């Protein structure tokens, strides 16, 4: 197989191709007149938790569907767990686990049967599954729900079972498409704990999300995509250091805009107004804090910059639907 593109990590070190679990080069996909993915390239190394971030319509799900071989790209190359996709997509999927965006557990079966039946799709023999299923149920915290019907499970339990189901073939790569959308905070934390546990076992994870706190907590590497192209890729820390000022003050309320126009723009390195809130970015927030302390009618919050600031800076504030 031709290795047309040599990949480098951010520090310029060449990545050993054997260490790459998923390699996407120059991926293109067009629907009618709309270019959904326009020359996207990234590589995921073994053991990474790779966060693919982007606003709605950025091309995240299309990229995942191309990687799984469910749709054919119009251009570019994909190699997943060493197999060329879409040519050997089925062979690749034998060693990949998928947590889809929307639950598709089998409502006609119990919790245990869902794992058993799904394992059957991988051609796994029954004894192997019988041995694996108790461990998976423990991992998902569903040992007590073994024989419960799917309809009796809460949203969080369903997600945990979907995650356990994606592990039934002991995959080399786990792909999660917005795994915690629609979950309450407790349920999200349980999923995150599960994913961290998998990372500690050395599993490679590809995660799409538009929750920045999720990416912040889990991802060892991030790629921000928008309108089908990669706009930044690095470790979360390096991305923040490179693109966003370290301190943020959010100023709220009726007075916010007036304050921002008169004082904020002078004191902040960068300032954005969105609705009733002024976001003030600075290397040092102290001069702004001193000023704000003297303004009685102005409410504000001082915090360190996070991935949300990065995301907004890179992809803009306008709505995407």
């Amino acid at each position, binding site marked *: 197989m031709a290795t047309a593109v040599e990949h480098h990590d951010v520090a310029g070190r060449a990545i050993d191709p054997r260490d790459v679990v998923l390699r996407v080069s120059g991926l293109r996909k067009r*629907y009618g007149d709309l270019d959904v993915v326009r020359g996207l390239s990234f590589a995921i190394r073994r053991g990474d938790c790779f966060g693919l971030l982007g606003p709605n319509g950025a091309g995240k799900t299309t990229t995942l569907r191309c990687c799984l071989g469910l749709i054919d790209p119009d251009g570019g190359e994909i190699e997943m767990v060493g197999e060329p996709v879409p040519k050997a997509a*089925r062979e690749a999927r034998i060693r990949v686990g998928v947590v889809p965006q929307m639950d*598709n557990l089998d409502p006609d079966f119990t919790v245990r049967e869902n794992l058993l039946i799904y394992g059957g799709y991988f051609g796994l023999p029954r004894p192997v599954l019988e041995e694996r299923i108790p461990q998976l149920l423990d991992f998902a915290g569903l040992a007590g729900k073994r024989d419960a019907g799917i309809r009796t499970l809460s949203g969080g339990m369903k997600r945990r079972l979907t995650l356990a189901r994606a592990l039934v073939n002991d995959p080399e790569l786990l792909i999660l498409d917005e795994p915690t959308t629609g979950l309450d905070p407790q349920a999200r934390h349980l999923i995150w704990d599960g994913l961290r546990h998998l990372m500690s076992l050395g599993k490679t994870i590809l995660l799409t999300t538009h929750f920045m706190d999720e990416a912040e907590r889990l991802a060892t590497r991030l790629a921000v995509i928008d309108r089908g192209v990669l706009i930044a890729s690095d470790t979360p820390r390096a991305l923040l250091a490179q693109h966003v000022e370290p301190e943020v003050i959010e100023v709220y309320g009726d007075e916010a805009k007036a304050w921002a126009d008169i004082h904020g723009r002078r004191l902040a390195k960068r300032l954005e107004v969105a609705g009733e809130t002024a976001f003030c970015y600075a290397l040092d927030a102290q001069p702004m804090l001193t000023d704000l302390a003297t303004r009685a009618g102005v409410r504000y919050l001082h915090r360190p910059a996070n991935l949300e600031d990065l995301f907004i800076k890179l992809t803009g504030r306008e709505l995407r639907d």
Partner: protein
Amino acid sequence: MTATAKLLAPPILSVRFVPVWRRNLLVWRKLAIASVLGNIADPLLYMLALGYGIGALVGEVGGMSYVAFIGTGMVCQSAMFTASFEAMYSAFSRMHVQRTWEGIINAPIALDDVVLAEWLWCGSKAVISTTAILAVIVALGYGHTWLALWVLPVGLLVGLTFGAAGLVMNALAPNYDFFTYFFTLVLTPMLLFSGVYFPVDQMPAWLATAAGFLPLKHAIDLTRPLMLGRVPDAIALHVGVLLFYAALAYYVALVLTRRRLLK
């Protein structure tokens, strides 16, 4: 391969369909008794009510009692309805509502395998319901010889034909209401003009000729003699027509399902 060529590519037939077919069997097993009772009850009620009620008025039809006549029609009707319901309502639930197919094709199973499994499952369900209704007819004394067992493969052919046609509808359906078209435009005329309730030759010549294009008519032409203990005439023609419709509809269903889900 261009996108269109890939869409129109011939079916990939692989034993990978087995776990998907088996999944449907395991679900059916959970509700098997209710399902079989449903398979029997409806045709049995028709057979008894129309058979004895109208039978008293018309006497013998086509060389057999009207009960026996309508009983053989009911075998084919039951296979047709069972497969159609499975391919439309049940498959649509699995494909669209529960997203079961989506889960399956994330595993190393191709969409072609799923469609093949669903199609063969429709045929299997038709065989199950044919078996059930045949058992009742035999118990009532209307299955004359072992030749009656050949009705089971006829039931399979009917199931594959209407299962495939139902899967075409499934691939096009935006919602469950869409399937009403199939009942009104396909299944109802099929029932009325294929000779389920009265012999086709009772109709005007042009209508009888037109009925020759209906797959259910050919299934009935096979089933009636078999139930009377006779070898049917023109077996190759009848089987050929059923196979033609089944294969054509299966291919169309596959292409339309690919178009719907692999994009």
